[in-house]
């Protein structure tokens, strides 16, 4: 078992922008590290460089204390689970799981014992003689896992291993993989674009965008303190409301133009935030769960109208657009001033029993304690680093 260290690792395919751009990331021994990011951001490429399947353009990659840039995959002692499982079609489940051991030259009895052990952890014992073709998707996934865990490698590498499963199975295997990883204590790099997986499985989560690392943190820190607008918008479902506002502020407060309405967010955090100069644009981020319905007399409320309502069973997503209380809603569009937050709208997450119908006019409160502020020009958080 070993720790993994990316130090300025870059991958450039031919010409064009780097697929992975100066990635520096440390994975502790036994840690479950999740790589997330939108499609094409370089997650797979980073993982493949770690496996030795892709050459590193520049930078240093270490497993344990050894630089592995030019070490052959077979000498790296890492195990990989592929998105499409890549099971050997001509081998039985048992042969699939035991293949790496056989190559390594383990004795027959040794292989048998380890395969049986892995199979029992993965509830595959009844299927050992079957060919992959005769297995369900979930079973194949488990065989792929089995192939990895049987080796007790330095590290597990997994590339979206659950994306081919149906929703229910995915939840099940999510827990299963996390359980096994904890059981074996092997450093794991897990690629996904599913943020629920990222939040629930990872000890820490690394968010990538266009090959660049945005933030590495525990899931909760990532959720609570996104370092930039991108991470804020990426993590959380439905995504955080991001509203572009102009600061009209003195030293202790900030005014937010929300459509024609202006609300004041008393600035509790002057100590913790870099306050931008008046006249600058900021992006205010509010998670849907922090948009709260109140009565109009409360402070910092805005008038909104329900445009759309999505009932998800356990919760309701309400799409809100702002309304100017002084204007007839139908005439509003023509009268509106050109304003940077003209198109502002919000998504609110509500309990399932809230009675709301499309067309309702609601007062919602944007609680400043839960708001995030980003520099509109750079997207970087205005929150001061606590360290």
């Amino acid at each position: 078992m070993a720790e993994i260290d990316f130090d300025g690792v870059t991958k450039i395919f031919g010409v064009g922008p780097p697929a992975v751009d100066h990635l520096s990331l440390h994975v502790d021994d036994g840690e479950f590290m999740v790589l997330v990011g939108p499609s094409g951001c370089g997650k797979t490429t980073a993982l493949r460089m770690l496996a030795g399947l892709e050459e590193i353009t520049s930078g240093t990659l270490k497993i344990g204390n050894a630089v592995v840039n030019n070490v052959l995959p077979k000498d790296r002692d890492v195990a990989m689970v592929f998105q499409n499982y890549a099971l050997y079609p001509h081998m039985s489940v048992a042969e699939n799981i035991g293949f790496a051991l056989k190559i390594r030259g383990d004795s027959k009895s040794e292989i048998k014992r380890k395969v049986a052990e892995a199979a029992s952890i993965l509830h595959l014992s009844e299927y050992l003689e079957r060919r992959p073709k005769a297995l369900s998707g979930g079973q194949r996934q488990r065989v792929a896992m089995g192939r990895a865990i049987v080796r007790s490698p330095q590290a597990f590498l997994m590339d979206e291993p659950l994306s081919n499963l149906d929703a229910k199975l995915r939840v099940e295997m999510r827990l299963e993989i996390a359980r096994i990883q904890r059981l074996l204590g092997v450093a794991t790099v897990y690629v996904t674009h599913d943020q629920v997986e990222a939040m629930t499985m990872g000890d820490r989560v690394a968010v990538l965008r266009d090959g660049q690392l945005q933030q590495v943190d525990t899931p909760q820190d990532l959720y609570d303190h996104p370092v930039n607008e991108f991470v804020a918008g990426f993590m959380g479902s439905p995504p955080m409301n991001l509203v572009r506002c102009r600061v009209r502020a003195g030293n202790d407060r900030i005014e937010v133009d929300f459509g024609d309405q202006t609300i004041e967010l008393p600035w509790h955090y002057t100590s913790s935030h870099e306050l931008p100069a008046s006249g600058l644009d900021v992006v205010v981020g509010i998670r849907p769960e922090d948009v709260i319905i109140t009565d109009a007399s409360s402070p910092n409320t805005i008038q909104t109208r329900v445009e759309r309502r999505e009932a998800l069973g356990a919760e309701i997503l309400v799409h809100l657009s702002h309304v100017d209380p002084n204007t007839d809603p139908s005439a509003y569009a023509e009268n509106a001033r050109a304003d940077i937050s003209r198109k502002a709208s919000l998504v609110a997450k509500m309990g399932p029993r809230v009675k709301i119908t499309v067309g309702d006019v609601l007062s919602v409160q944007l609680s400043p304690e839960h708001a995030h502020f980003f520099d509109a020009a750079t997207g970087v958080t205005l929150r001061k680093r606590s360290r």
Partner: protein
Amino acid sequence: MTTLITPPQESDDREAPTPPSRNTRAKVGRWALFFAMVVIAVVMLYPFWVMIITSLKSEAQFLSGGGFSWLSWKHLSATIPVGQEVLSSTIVCSASILIILVVGLPAGFAFAKLRFRTSTAVFLVIVSAMMVPLQAILMPEFVNVTKLGLTGGYFGAILVYAALGTPFSVFLFTTYFRGVPDELIEAGIVDGLGYFGALWRLVVPIAIPAIATVTVLQFIQIWDDLLVGLLFIQNTSERPITVGLAVLAAGRTTSIPELMAGSFISALPAMIVYLGFQRYLVKGLTMGIDR
């Protein structure tokens, strides 16, 4: 790659909802169709009929037209060294096919998965070689192989057959391996295989259907070939059976019933291989345009 292997399924639903008035007409049509198929079958079986009937006559019976006897079969081995020739054919076929596979499999793997700098161009050159008929290069080829002293035994013919079969096998294996997901090979490599190990322990087992296709097609091709065996095996006692037959036939002194008996024997192995592995043959033939 996989779509064409399955033979067309028998299905009766295509004619199912015919209104009663058209029923009889459809029935007549079906019978006419069946009759046509029988006629074609007779035509296609004609060579076998000629071989069998003719071989079951003595030379005298053949000339006069009537009667049957086993005489030609009994005297066959005296006229044509059938046993020796079948053995020669078998040796030449097996050795050539072995080389074609041993050379073609790694090359196909390389062109599909381990692409090197000029691999696309090299691949195209090799595939173009499929189009070069032996006759076009017959003279230099013959002189080269003779100068190398390879026309004495089987080696010259084996190498020429191998060289002629290699472009096709490279093409077929490359196309086949392109259909194998990269991840499968990569999984093996991460599991601890080198490239040779991946070739031997993953690629070859997965390629069994393609190997069967190459083997069957090349077997029939080489077994049935005349030109290479005729020129590149100088020793008459090492002649393959197809060559033996052709030379006797061209000499026009051999009894025709005996020639037909020999022909029948020569046709047998290829027919058996063909009937047993029909689907691989079809697959090989349509290689490159299937899907």
